[in-house]
């Protein structure tokens, strides 16, 4: 299941969607809004998430299929928030299910790494006085993604 939503979500409820007696191992990655300083050293009050929804859904479907095939997952779900989020709120949840744990864990990491550099979401930090500051892509995320090319292709 892939979901792009402006509502928050409950981990137990999302687990129930992918849970099955045949799985055995589940890996979850959850990203939340971290209280931090922006690149201009201002205090972050929250974030705004922009999305090209039709494209993001297509891209997430492709990543999900790759992961299902490569790691023989029994299930996989990806949820991503859009819109305005406060500090501490959930941004993204990746859930992978497998009969064996190493597969579930590796696939989950592949999905979040792919999402970070391939999927049409853009993050803005919300600062004081309604100021928005664009978040820049991290070169580290790009480098991290390169290692998957050897594994997945």
């Amino acid at each position: 299941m892939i979901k792009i939503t402006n509502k928050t979500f409950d981990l137990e409820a999302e687990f129930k969607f992918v849970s099955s007696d045949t799985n055995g191992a589940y890996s979850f990655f959850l990203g939340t809004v971290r209280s931090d300083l922006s690149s201009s050293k201002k205090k972050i009050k929250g974030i705004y998430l922009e999305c090209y929804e039709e494209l993001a859904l297509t891209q997430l479907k492709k990543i999900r299929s790759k992961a299902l095939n490569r790691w023989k997952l029994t299930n996989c779900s990806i949820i991503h928030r859009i819109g305005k989020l406060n500090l501490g709120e959930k941004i993204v949840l990746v859930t992978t299910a497998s009969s064996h744990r190493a597969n579930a864990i590796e696939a989950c990491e592949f999905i979040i790494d792919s999402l970070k550099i391939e999927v049409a979401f853009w993050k803005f930090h919300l600062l004081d006085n309604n100021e928005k500051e664009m978040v820049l892509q991290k070169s580290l995320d790009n480098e991290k993604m390169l290692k998957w090319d050897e594994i997945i292709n």
Partner: protein
Amino acid sequence: MSITLKYFSWIRVKLKKSHDLIELNQTISFKELKSNLILKDPIFKEIFEDNSVKFFLNLREIDDENQTLSNGDILAFLPPVTGG
């Protein structure tokens, strides 16, 4: 024929709009459209010179500048993504 342009992230902010509908009298290539847009607004020069910006035509990344555009096409301008 008409083509929809969709702008995201800093491109949307800079252009102060999220989309444009442009009307054309004849078929043109992506390359020709780029020249047209730069003539209309110099901001597009900055956009097209930025190697990190990607262009998606109907949800598929453009890999050939000579690709021609058709009526109803949706062309999206995508700065590097930062979700997750």
